[in-house]
């Protein structure tokens, strides 16, 4: 464990063939040591070398999969502590907690709430990925019956939660094919829980609230018995403990390569007390700081939209801006006389501009040009937002058939483009809008009140 680049290099073919997309075997070895690539990117490693190197090439935090098919949920496999270093790989997955002692009708409602949790933002479909079924009935038959019902009426991932192995066993008979997470092995029950996880080849959560030393030694014992797809719960329920434990777990795994804590994590932010907003606030901290799996008591829409958005923000690639599709968008219910504005497809730019046009209450057309996700000025400086492109886009989107007028409002920062666009688009007049989007409402209102169009 913890080989250096040079040590790894000794096991590589040293042919510098480049098939791994690195110029030399040494360069590849360095990346491997930093856990930035996988060993299988080199097709030429010998079997013997593989054995030695699998250990080092294993990600510092194990990749654990739950669920099945296209609803498989991947957890863990993170390699950095800060998002500016490198994209965080796997967004925190969200689960709704359902207790088995609720009425059938309440349970059905909650399942439907999960099924209907999909929202779309910046072209991504966002949802609550799992249901955490919690045993409170003390009745294995009831627990199994509800588990079966969940699997029948939802494609969501599943967490089976009980510290009693007989409960888990009862539910697994019906639901093992869904590849659920078993929650949880404890100091008391771990040999039975481990046996179940092994029998069904399922991931297993490990719970100890006696400190990270105790948690890590329990995880080590479970792993020694042959279950390696683990998820850690340190029992932290308030924000302070959560932040402290999750940070230590992440750091121990990544910086110290401390294997007993090299697993994804699970938190229960609602267990710290308070209402849905307090729960969501703690969940937010979990999204920022290293929770892999977040089990919520409440997933009302007003809580989900902020949490989804936060998750999207934190887990975007810092090197690859989010983009929206090139298109002619309607803002409100515009008609053939409504103002026409143009901007770039950097999602931040688009959202800000869209929001301000909406604030103006003036129905408008917003033409979005593909600038490879760059902001207005950056795109202009990189020649990705220029007059020929804009002219082409106007034709391509059939703008001349959709609006009757021939006036195009461009961002104030690129006023310099106006002459050129007019040359490229005969018959059109370019209007230079304000520089800051905040001034768009006033601009549009002034324009429509003076009936400039």
């Amino acid at each position, binding site marked *: 464990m913890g080989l250096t680049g040079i040590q790894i290099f000794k096991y590589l073919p040293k042919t510098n063939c480049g098939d791994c997309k690195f110029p030399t075997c040494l360069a590849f070895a360095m990346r491997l040591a930093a856990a930035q690539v996988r060993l299988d990117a080199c097709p030429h490693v010998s079997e013997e070398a593989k054995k030695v190197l699998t250990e080092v090439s294993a990600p510092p935090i194990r990749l654990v999969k739950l669920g099945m098919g296209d609803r498989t949920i991947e957890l863990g496999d993170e390699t950095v502590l800060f998002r500016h270093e490198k994209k965080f790989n796997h967004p925190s997955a969200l689960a709704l907690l359902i207790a088995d002692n609720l009425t059938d009708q309440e349970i059905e409602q909650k399942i439907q709430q999960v099924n209907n949790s999909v929202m779309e933002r910046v072209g991504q479909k966002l949802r609550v990925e799992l249901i955490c079924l919690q045993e409170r009935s003390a009745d294995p038959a009831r627990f199994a019956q509800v588990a079966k019902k969940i699997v029948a009426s939802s494609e969501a991932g599943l967490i089976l939660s009980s510290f009693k192995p007989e409960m888990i066993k009862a539910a697994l008979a019906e639901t093992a094919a869904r590849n659920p997470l078993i929650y949880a092995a404890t100091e008391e029950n771990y040999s039975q829980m481990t046996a179940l996880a092994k029998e069904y080849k399922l991931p297993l959560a490990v719970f100890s609230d006696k400190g990270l030393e105790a948690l890590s030694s329990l995880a080590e014992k479970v792993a020694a018995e042959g279950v390696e797809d683990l998820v850690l719960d340190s029992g932290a329920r308030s*924000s*302070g403990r959560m932040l402290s434990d999750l940070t230590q777990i992440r750091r*121990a795994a990544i910086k110290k390569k*401390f294997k007993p804590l090299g697993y994804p994590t699970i938190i229960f932010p609602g267990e710290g007390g308070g209402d849905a907003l307090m729960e969501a606030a703690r969940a937010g901290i979990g999204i920022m700081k290293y929770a892999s799996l977040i089990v919520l008591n409440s997933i009302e*829409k007003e*809580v989900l939209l902020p949490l989804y958005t936060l998750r999207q923000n934190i887990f975007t690639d810092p090197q690859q801006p989010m983009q929206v599709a090139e298109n002619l968008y309607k803002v409100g219910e515009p008609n053939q006389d409504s103002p026409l504005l143009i901007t770039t497809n950097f999602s931040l730019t688009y959202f800000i501009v869209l929001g301000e046009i909406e604030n103006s209450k003036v129905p408008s057309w917003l033409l979005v040009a593909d600038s490879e996700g760059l902001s207005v000025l950056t795109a202009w400086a990189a020649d990705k937002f220029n007059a020929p492109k804009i002219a082409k886009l106007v034709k391509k989107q059939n703008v001349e058939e959709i609006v009757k007028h021939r006036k195009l409002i461009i961002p104030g920062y690129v006023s310099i483009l106006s002459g050129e666009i007019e040359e490229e688009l005969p018959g059109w007049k370019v209007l230079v809008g304000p520089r800051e989007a905040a001034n768009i409402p006033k601009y549009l209102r002034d324009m429509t009140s003076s009936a400039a169009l």
Partner: protein
Amino acid sequence: MAYTVPKEAYNGKINQVEVGRNQHKLIMGGEETLPFLSFEGKAVSTVPLALEIQDINPTGDWASSLTEIYGSVMDNPAEWARMCQDEFKADMICLRLAGTHPDNGDRSPQEAGKIVEAVLSAIKVPLIILGSNHVEKDAAVIKHVAEVAANTGSIIGKAQEKNYKTFAAVATAYGHKLVALSDLDINLSKQLNILLTQSGFDSKNIIIDAMSSTLGYGLEYTYSVMERIRLSALQQNDAMMQMPMICDIGEVTWKVKEAKATEQDQPAWGAVRPRGILWEVLTALSFLMAGGNLVVFRHPEALSRVRSILAELMATA
């Protein structure tokens, strides 16, 4: 395998800044670790939470979730400030002189000065005085209002690359702390701090504004710039990055539709009131996790929610 707590050894720490007057002084900053990680060192112990008020009634501009709370006091900045202090328990009041903007009333420095005076006599807690984000006008306004507020230990802002000299001069002359705003870029932020210091301003009186955004609208940029500023302060012991950071989030948050669209307009988004509050809460917590030391809110419930979470974050486990 024995577990050892993975502590980081930092060689820098964040400046501690004291603001306010008389017995009502507050401190911010002073931490020697990343936010709230008391297991490895001295974590931040006070994070002042401020509420924003304005010199002109913002009805029409502000979301109704806000105007229905503040109601008639929005016509009277002094009353408004008092309400925020007494009823909503704000640690500081942030007076934004929005009405001095040429497009929003174009009030004179003298008119602004009268309002600053009235607000100062209405409250005991420290005051943050911000311009309207118009570089030339702000410089003209601040010259006068900083004098009106002389010796109150207020925070004034926002100094930017184009007007920092005026701000630095008056902050020094009248004993204020200074917010230094740059364009969402760690290098620009550092450069402005260097310029201020080179002009003779005491770097211990600077508060960094890395340019706040809001959830869904560039939050990740502010978050990462702030995290990088904190890391270079602590790890590289970079004195030009060791200032406390302000998170001016109310203005950006309450502009976006997710925070203010009613349920009738956006049925898929759920109830507007908790949604808006949570939008501001999560924005605040993000920037606090990234190293923020002072937050300016618009919604009093967002402030009180964050206060509860801060209590959890600061409780020793």
